[in-house]
């Protein structure tokens, strides 16, 4: 038998030792002849392992033998491309072959991860067959290879102490292998290296320096944090720290927050020991002042204070550096900085702080005698006219050209809602026209609609519960009904307001199928959905007998303006529709519906007649359950709405009764928000429910943001549900929801529609349910107060009412809450009321919270 056959037999027998023996002493030329077949065998056995994992253990000897055979025969180019591993040691076959490309092969294996052959390569290095690789890959493989106590490994392979151990501090590693990652999931490099220092195997001083070197290397935060933790695990002495003071100070400018924190602590310890070179330290401490973490800046100020006391001559320079801390948003930090500045330069402190004036907390500004930046609060009284604000007039689509382009746009972008309404109206008006241009012009739209309806992702990606309410689906169906006369297949089940809207699309589709052109009565005149009553009546005069859902929609969109005049115009409207419209406009002669009446239609007319009277009261009902999971207790809130409609199959009735949309799809929600602009309370109630159920962002409900955005754009009077939605938005974890709620707060405070007292009461009530994170309110109130000083009074009232209302604030959040209250008090000069005083007095406080409470009570 030849070499190939012998090797093949050894591989099939799973005899790696025999493979190795057969290859001994062969020339490269002889090996080359068997390379191709060996590679085939290797792939075969690897494939076998992949497809039949159950027989793993029985086939490993064969794959080992094949690996040995390939390593002993294949060229470098092949080996570089071939993925393999072996539990049988392969260093023997490589040492015996000793190809000139051995170093290159080793580097290539490291680039691929390098784990499988690391021990073999190490053996080749120790045997002098291979020079030590200098690549990062080698060190990464070394990191990943630690599976035993480091001390044992070093005892067995002492050469590691000459190079590899120190290279650990120079190589950042990657997602697969890094010291931080390895220690988190697998082994303990930190403990092992500290052990080497303890036993005197590795010089302690060098380890301390090497870890600082690593921290200067711009490593990613997670990986850098390992080195600072390791440095501290060596517990450097005062002298050791003092000798490295310059290095700690330089690290204050690091981009990694944990490194800055670590360095600041080290500098503080050196200063405490009186060993800091103050003149050299001062300019570098400025970097510590720019830290984001409050603790780091406070520590830096502490060090500066200590320097001031030790070296009074440096007071002026110290003050200038302390001023840099004024960039920090925490009033506590600012107070500490101003304290220090006053101690350094006395009456000159305001001058030093001048350039930071706009960043200062009210209390510090007052203390320094600096004027508030001129931001005048704009208060506009709420009037009836506010309800009628219509920024832009919506016009009907002019012609088929515009309709086709607009239709394509709303179908691609699922909105905006007012454009969808224009499309419905356009199709409804033009469905009777079919000239020679119709077919070529609409062909692209029909093709696109067909594609939409055929795309499975419309259902699969959006999710089965949302996908069906994506408005593009019903618009695509309408396009085919209009252009190709294909009958529509829309769901008749009621899922809230979105069923009503798709029902409206179906109405237009039926009209389009029959070619019965007529404009929509319900085409809104503004982006929010309003229709002026006079215009509505005029439309009905021109085109009587609107479709049922169209009429309901029109009624729900009626604004409050010019109703008397509109009623006069409506006197001559014929038939039952005329009677309904007159009723909606406040006519006294048709207060009662006829004997056989359409309940939903009359309900809508009733809502249009008295939007706030007939809507019912909405209230969220909370139920908090405690769950113990793995030894921890979790509070899980269940929220429901008292006024949730009963199962109802008439979507029109649902639309008139409540604003529950029945979907989380953002585009559909935006459209739903235009259904009933006259009375937003039900809509805000639906939003409050949606936000309350996901206040900590347990699931990615991106559509919920639409409710808060509607609130921000709302210019009407705030009812109970508007306040509840506002409070929940401000307490939301998701940044977008919170940002929109802040917009609403700023707008509401700006024109006086949001009252601090009412907001505070609602927050107190919600906090009482026990699932709110009060610090989120504090954070968002503080942000508004910083930017709009004129709103501090209302914000103070809101927080004071929260306190008076007994809002249970978690202890960890209390000092932040009271601190902001103190700041707002400082800004406004107001005092907390008796009820809040009593509640604060009854609380068991300590630390900073006690200090702030004393200020408030004093």
């Amino acid at each position, binding site marked *: 038998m030849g070499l190939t056959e012998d090797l093949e037999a050894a591989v099939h027998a799973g005899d790696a030792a025999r493979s190795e023996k057969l290859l001994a002493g062969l020339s490269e030329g002889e090996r080359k002849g068997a390379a191709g077949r060996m590679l085939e065998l290797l792939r075969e056995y690897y494939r076998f392992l992949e497809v039949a994992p159950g027989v793993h253990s029985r086939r490993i000897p064969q794959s080992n033998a094949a690996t040995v055979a390939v390593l002993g025969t294949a060229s470098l180019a092949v080996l570089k491309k071939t993925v393999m591993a072996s539990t049988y040691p392969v260093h023997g076959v490589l040492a015996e072959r000793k190809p000139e490309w051995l170093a290159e092969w080793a580097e290539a294996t490291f680039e691929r991860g390098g784990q499988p052959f690391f021990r073999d390569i190490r053996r080749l290095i120790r045997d002098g067959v291979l020079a030590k690789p200098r690549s990062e890959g080698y060190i990464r493989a070394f990191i990943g290879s630690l599976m035993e106590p480091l001390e044992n490994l070093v005892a067995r392979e002492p050469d590691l102490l000459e190079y590899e151990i120190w290279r650990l501090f120079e190589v950042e590693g990657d997602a697969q292998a890094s010291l931080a990652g390895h220690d988190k999931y697998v082994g303990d490099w930190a403990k092992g290296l500290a052990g080497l220092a303890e036993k005197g195997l590795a010089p302690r001083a060098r380890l301390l320096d090497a870890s600082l070197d690593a921290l200067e290397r711009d*490593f990613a935060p997670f990986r850098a944090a390992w080195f600072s933790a390791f440095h501290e695990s060596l517990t450097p002495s005062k002298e050791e720290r003092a000798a490295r003071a310059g290095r700690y100070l330089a690290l204050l400018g690091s981009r990694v927050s944990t490194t800055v924190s670590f360095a600041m602590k080290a500098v503080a310890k050196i200063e405490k020991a009186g060993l800091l070179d103050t003149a050299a330290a001062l300019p570098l401490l400025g*970097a510590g002042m720019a830290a984001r973490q409050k603790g780091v800046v406070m520590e830096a100020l502490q060090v500066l204070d200590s320097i001031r006391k030790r070296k009074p001559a440096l007071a002026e320079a110290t003050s200038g550096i302390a001023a840099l801390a004024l*960039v920090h*948003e925490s009033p506590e930090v600012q107070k500490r900085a101003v304290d220090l500045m006053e101690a350094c330069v006395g009456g000159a402190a305001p001058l030093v702080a001048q350039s930071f004036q706009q960043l200062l907390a009210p209390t510090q500004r007052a203390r320094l005698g600096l004027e508030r930046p001129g931001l005048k609060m704009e208060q506009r009284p709420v009037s009836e006219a506010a309800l009628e604000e219509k920024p832009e007039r919506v016009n009907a689509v002019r012609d088929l050209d515009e309709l086709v382009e607009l239709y394509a746009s709303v179908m691609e972008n699922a909105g905006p809602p007012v454009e969808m309404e224009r499309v419905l109206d356009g199709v409804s008006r033009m469905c009777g026209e079919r000239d020679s241009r119709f077919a070529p012009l609409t062909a692209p739209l029909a093709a696109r609609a067909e594609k939409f309806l055929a795309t499975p992702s419309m259902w699969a990606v959006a999710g089965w519960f949302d996908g069906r309410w994506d408005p593009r689906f019903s618009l695509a169906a309408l396009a085919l009904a209009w252009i190709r006369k294909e009958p529509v297949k829309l769901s008749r089940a009621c899922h809230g307001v979105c069923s009503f809207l798709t029902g409206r699309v179906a109405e237009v589709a039926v009209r389009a199928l029959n070619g019965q052109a007529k404009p929509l009565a319900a085409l809104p005149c503004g982006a929010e959905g309003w229709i002026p009553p006079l215009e509505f009546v005029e439309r009905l005069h021109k085109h009587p007998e609107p479709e049922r859902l169209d009429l309901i929609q029109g009624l729900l969109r009626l604004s409050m303006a010019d109703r008397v005049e509109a009623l006069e115009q409506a006197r001559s409207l014929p038939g039952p529709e005329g009677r309904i419209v007159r009723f909606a406009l406040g006519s006294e002669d048709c207060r009662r519906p006829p004997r056989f009446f359409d309940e939903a239609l009359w309900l809508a007319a009733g809502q249009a007649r008295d939007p706030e009277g007939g809507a019912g009261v909405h209230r969220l009902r909370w139920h908090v359950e405690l769950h113990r999971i793995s030894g921890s207790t979790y509070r899980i809130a269940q929220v429901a709405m008292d006024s949730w409609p009963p199962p109802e199959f008439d979507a029109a009735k649902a639309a008139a009764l409540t604003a529950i949309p029945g979907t989380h799809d953002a585009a559909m929600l935006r459209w739903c928000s235009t259904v009933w602009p006259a009375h937003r309370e039900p809509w805000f109630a639906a939003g409050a429910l949606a936000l309350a159920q996901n206040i900590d962002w347990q699931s990615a409900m991106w559509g919920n943001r639409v409710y808060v955005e509607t609130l921000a*754009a709302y210019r009407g009077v705030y009812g109970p549900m508007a306040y509840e939605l506002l409070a929940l938005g401000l307490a939301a974890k998701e940044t*977008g929801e919170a940002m*929109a709620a802040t*917009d609403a707060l700023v707008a509401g405070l700006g024109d006086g529609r949001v009252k601090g007292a009412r907001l505070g009461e609602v927050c107190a009530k919600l906090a009482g349910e026990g699932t709110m994170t009060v610090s989120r309110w504090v954070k968002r109130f503080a942000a508004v107060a910083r*930017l709009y000083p004129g709103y501090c009074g209302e914000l103070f009232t809101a927080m004071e009412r929260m306190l008076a209302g007994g809002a249970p604030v978690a202890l960890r959040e209390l000092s932040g809450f009271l601190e902001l209250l103190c700041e707002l008090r400082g800004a406004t000069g107001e005092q907390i009321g008796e009820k809040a005083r009593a509640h604060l007095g009854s609380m068991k406080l300590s630390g900073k919270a006690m200090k702030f409470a004393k200020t408030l009570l004093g």
Partner: protein
Amino acid sequence: MIEYAYRYEHCSSVQSAEAGSRIHLAAMRYGERQAFFSAALREARCAADWMLGLAQVVNTRFYVPPAMVARRLAAADPVITCGAERLRLEGFSPCCGAYARVDLLPGAYEATRAEAGTTNVDFRPEMRAALAGVRHGEAARLTVSAEEVEFSTGSGSAVERKVRLPVRWLKGFAEVQAHQARMKPRFTLSGAMAQRFLRELPRTTTRGDVWVTPVGAAVRMSRSAMPGAVRVGGIERLRILAPLARQAQSLTVYAGEDGATAWQLTRAEMRFLLALSPQANRGFSGEGQVLFPLAAEPARKALGAVRAALRWQSRIAPEALGAELGLGEDEAAWALAQLGVSGLVGYDLAEGAYFHRELPFDFSLIEEMQPRLKEARRLAAESGVRWEGEEAWVRGREVEHRVRKVDGVWRCTCPWIARHGLGRGPCKHILAVEMDGGEGDGSD
């Protein structure tokens, strides 16, 4: 993908000495002209920090498509341009959505030698680590050279690193200049205020647009548009500026109408610019802002003259250049936009003008790498455009699309225009019509 090999004759390095650090950026040999720069930096720590910021942009994928998590692209090395008393380092993120540039103005250094040229510079992790070690207040000397220098502590041997640069990366690099040319300054924040704003940025991904509105001397982030507000998509990308702002004296915000924004930190004679695409998941490469210039015939005539006038200027204003060459301002601007696509000019927002540089990549294929343009050429060549009066009908895959101009603005019935309008450049049908003459004959 384009296989691109970085070949350096030595490694970049930083050497610490008593007299201060010596930063040596190893440059790649590219063409006949070799960039060479040697200068003492006046504020070395800040320069090092901002170069690290650039390296971070170059190494960060701000958006990873769900199906591509495992396929991370190798980062490309920054590009350096010496010329007309400016040293500029530019880089582009692998996701194609962020462009960063560090400008060192004449006051930032004292040059002993500055020869014009553009090339890549070696910016591997070792170099970044060394830069991070430059001390505050330390003097430093910066050298950019393809030659090995005496103090180089690198391996000494040639360095070669092959990267696979996606076509869209090259396209985006060129495209971002066109975006910048359309931006206008919107507001400026003081350094301290900028620090606070950047600290308050969301730490998690924020879906949708955020408006940044100036309020007094500060700014507020909101979800709704307000007067003076700048719209930013993927605002969390700005967090990369937070550590760099510590050294800045001001932050100037630039924005255009297309949703792209640029944020420029300034400190005395140094600038750090970060340009962001309209959304984190939208690379500059797909924005199509250069398609009209690429398709345009008139600019081709002026192109040669403008190209011949490039002499490593740091400021090329279309009107001045037009006057110099006897061209109209629009014609000069059009030609400069085309040269931007070829990587021959960049745009400097602070100056409000182009600057000459020659990106060290092969841009000759870029025109062919524009699928819309390619398709449009094919349609135009295969008589895919049919005129009916002033309306053109362009052959699509299944149907014909109507293309027309309304009030001077192109309209098309295809899904691309329906979805994006002209915000992401014209569709292939509009381009085909442009190539076919652009106007109907007025007869049916």
